[in-house]
């Protein structure tokens, strides 16, 4: 957190929650990015992500029991794909925290957290459907919104829509 | 046309009290040696049914439901949409007769036919007035209960023959439902038969006639008769697959149940059968408990209302009105209530209606034996 800058209460709560995680995982997580709109930290060691997730869910002072949202991201400049998870502790604590996990752009893989939060199950499928990153260990890994035989991953920045799909002209 | 036949035909036409003469005259009307009179006599109820099914049944259901739901209902075809059903029938007649390729053609075609025949065969024993009765069987009631079971065969044939999973579900549900509900229905009707001491529908009706009108009806003859009356009414709803027991066609669960695959005239026939059986059970309940074609109005002193409103035409009027009343109640229930679940349906049948039917059976027997 930058020195001398006054943050709102919610950001301070998030910072306190981050401190507990940082204490446990040290360099596996990045520094805390304190900003008013969405305070977050990044998981640097992608393999530890399920462990961090479980820790966040079960630690007595964290109890991030509710995954509000998981967003797939395409960091084209960094040649990476990623997810952003908005976590919070529903009806127990007031802190909210966003977590970013990134993986390689081609064939990158992120371990699944579908068994930590059921919410992640469909969201991970959606992220795969739209961006094409793999989620290792996902219980039901398929596309969800696009048809199974759709080519490409639509939300990637360099996505080119296929010309025809089963004889149907696609770009209308 | 011979002159004697014409005279026989024309004289007693509107004379109420000599109805047997009327019907016998008509029965004796032979054109070119053919028993045309008999055919006309037998056809009158069916003509009525067809007309009723066309105009009142479907149109009435649509209008009643519309008014209950703050809607106008059909308004376009004819004044107040009165010709809507005819337009619908014309549309259905023009439609292509589709038989799914994977369907069992024989069963698929025979299903609606059996259903239709099953529901209309019972009309043979319904006395529409003291003269209009297709067949005055001495086991009329028994026959009516029995013949309704034929519908099950039609539904099963339609459902199985369609080769559609929804149809199959609908058919199986329907069979389970109708077969189960026949038990309380039959026991409840037995109470009525016990009060009458006969199974002849005409006899049951005649036993309920009298100058005091509705007082003579079996429903008011014994203090427990309302119980079998209610039981039979509820069970009859289930037998004709009406709401809240319309689970065989449950549109929100099974799309359209056993007639999912039907279209065009076959669909119309199924529809006709449904409305036919609706009137049939309504007529049975009014015959057994509400005096059939007897006028409900009593003679009050010198004002002989009962006598004034009795006669063959009046008789037909009364039984049809009573039937219509029950059909109205059926529609009223349908547009009020949600649908039961399969297990709840069975619960209602076996754990509520059947025990109560037995209780009412015993109570009626006691009443009949010990109370003169």
């Amino acid at each position: 957190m930058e020195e001398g800058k006054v943050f709102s209460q919610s950001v301070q709560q998030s910072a306190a929650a981050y401190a507990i995680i940082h204490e446990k995982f040290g360099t596996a997580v990045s520094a805390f990015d304190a900003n008013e709109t969405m305070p977050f930290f990044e998981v640097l060691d992608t393999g530890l992500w399920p462990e961090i997730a479980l820790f966040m869910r079960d630690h007595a002072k964290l109890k991030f029991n509710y995954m509000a949202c998981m967003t797939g991201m395409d960091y084209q400049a960094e040649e990476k794909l990623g997810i952003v998870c908005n976590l919070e502790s529903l009806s127990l604590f007031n802190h909210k925290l966003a977590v970013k996990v990134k993986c390689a752009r081609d064939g990158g893989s992120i371990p699944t957290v579908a068994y930590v939060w059921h919410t992640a199950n469909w969201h991970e499928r959606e992220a795969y459907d739209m961006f094409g990153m793999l989620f290792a260990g996902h219980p039901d890994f398929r596309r969800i919104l696009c048809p199974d035989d759709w080519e490409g991953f639509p939300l990637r920045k360099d996505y080119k829509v296929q010309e025809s799909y089963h004889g149907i002209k696609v770009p209308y | 046309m011979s002159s004697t036949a014409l005279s026989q035909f024309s004289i007693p036409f509107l004379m109420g009290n000599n109805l047997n003469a009327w019907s016998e005259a008509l029965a004796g009307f032979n054109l070119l040696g053919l028993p045309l009179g008999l055919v006309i006599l037998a056809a009158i109820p069916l003509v009525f049914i067809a007309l009723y099914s066309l105009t009142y049944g479907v149109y009435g259901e649509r209008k009643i439901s519309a008014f209950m739901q703050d809607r106008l209902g059909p308004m376009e075809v004819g004044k107040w949409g009165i010709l809507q059903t005819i337009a619908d029938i014309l549309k259905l007649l023009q439609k292509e007769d589709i038989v799914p390729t994977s369907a069992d053609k024989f069963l698929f075609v025979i299903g609606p036919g059996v259903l239709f025949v099953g529901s209309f065969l019972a009309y043979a024993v319904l006395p529409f007035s003291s003269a209009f009765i297709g067949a005055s069987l001495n086991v009329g009631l028994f026959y009516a209960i029995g013949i309704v079971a034929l519908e099950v065969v039609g539904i099963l044939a339609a459902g199985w023959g369609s080769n559609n999973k929804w149809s199959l579900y609908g058919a199986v549900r329907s069979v389970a439902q109708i077969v189960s509900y026949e038990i309380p229905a039959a026991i409840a009707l037995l109470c009525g038969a016990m009060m009458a001491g006969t199974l002849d529908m005409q006899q049951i009706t005649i036993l309920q006639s009298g100058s005091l009108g509705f007082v003579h009806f079996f429903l008011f003859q014994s203090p427990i008769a309302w119980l079998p009356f209610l039981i039979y009414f509820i069970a009859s709803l289930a037998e004709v697959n009406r709401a809240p027991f319309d689970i065989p066609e449950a549109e929100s669960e099974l799309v359209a149940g056993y007639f999912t695959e039907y279209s065009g005239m076959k669909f119309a026939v199924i529809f006709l059968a449904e409305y036919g059986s609706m009137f049939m059970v309504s007529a049975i309940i009014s015959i057994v408990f509400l005096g059939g074609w007897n006028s409900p109005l009593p003679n009050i002193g010198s004002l002989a209302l009962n006598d004034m409103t009795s006669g063959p035409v009046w008789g037909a009027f009364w039984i049809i009105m009573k039937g219509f009343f029950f059909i109205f109640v059926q529609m009223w229930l349908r547009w009020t209530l949600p649908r039961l679940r399969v297990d709840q349906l069975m619960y209602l049948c076996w754990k509520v209606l059947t025990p109560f039917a037995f209780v009412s059976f015993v109570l009626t027997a006691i009443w009949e034996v010990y109370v003169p």
Partner: protein
Amino acid sequence: MQELDTAGLGSIRVTRKNDHTVVIEKDLATEQMVLAMGPQHPSTHGVLKLECLTDGEVITEAEPFLGYLHRCFEKCCENVDYPAIVPYTDRLDYLSGMNSEFAYALAVEKLLDIEIPRRVEFIRVIVAELNRIASHLVAIGTYGIDLGAFTPFLFCFRDREIILGLLEWASGARMLYNYIWIGGLAYDVPSDFLKRVGEFVTYFRPKAVELCNLLTKNEIFVKRTIGIGIMPADVAINYGWSGPMLRGSGVKWDLRRNDPYSVYPELDFNVPVPDGKLSVVGDCLSRHLVRALEMEESLKIIEQCIAKMPSAEGFNPRSAIPKRIRPKAGEVYVRAENPRGELGFYIQSDGKSTKPLRCKARSSCFVNLSAMKDLSKGQLIPDLVAIIGSIDIVLGEVDR
């Protein structure tokens, strides 16, 4: 004794008496059947497909298949300016367009960090709550249809029609409003609007009671829904449920209360949760009751908003709208309480463009529906219909 459940053979009990004799008892051999429910089915509320593995009437497993209504909302958003996304958000949850717009406007306003005039806030709350009532009316009415009661549905639509008329009067459109803009409103409300809304509140109260007597209190309805599809609170939270679904499981969580936005902190309303007297906490009936009670709370909110509404003098609904909407670089996740739960918008801005780099809609129905597989296990087909109805999905929002 060993119990095997092999697919297609019913349950088989294998009892080993001694080393040589094995007794195999078999229930009536039944065959499991795959039943494709939807995408064209009367009670899947749109184009949802459920592939059910059924054993007689019992559902062994139901797997939802989505995407029949996928319109790549998120890809569209990356190609249009911030204000032009508003009409697209209407089309997410088309039964409560105002609420979706509200959530989106909140998200971009947080990114822009701008102050909104108070009258705008109150009008936003009024139209959003009106739309919430309209949406719940559809939910309750279609739930009636799912369970076979057709009449309540038409009563609901009769009253919803009035709300749509009111919203059309305010915004110019009946369902897809484009009324709540980033930083303001498209127009001020018509002069008589608040009076008419007040009249609607007095009109609607007895109608809601009538609806309750006709449907909610009906014994058949209660028996059809009570104890069906029970979702315990902790599992519901883990599944990410929100809105009436979560409250139906007994968690008192309403974003208008717990993560307040707009002028909701100033307003007095209850967050109805089932107490377990009328229903089993977490079942279909609880969720239905929560929706029914929420309509009354919305009416209360509307009444308070009308009373507190600042005057229209010198009011310009577009006064706070920036000339050019180009937020500084950053990300934001803002959510609002939609009639179906938490509708969140994750927006990433690169600080240079007038188009978002990424705009993700966290759809409440999508998340709520993900529990379908668990909820439907071992239920009867009619119960499955009751469960889908109680989830109250709008496929426009599920598939986006």
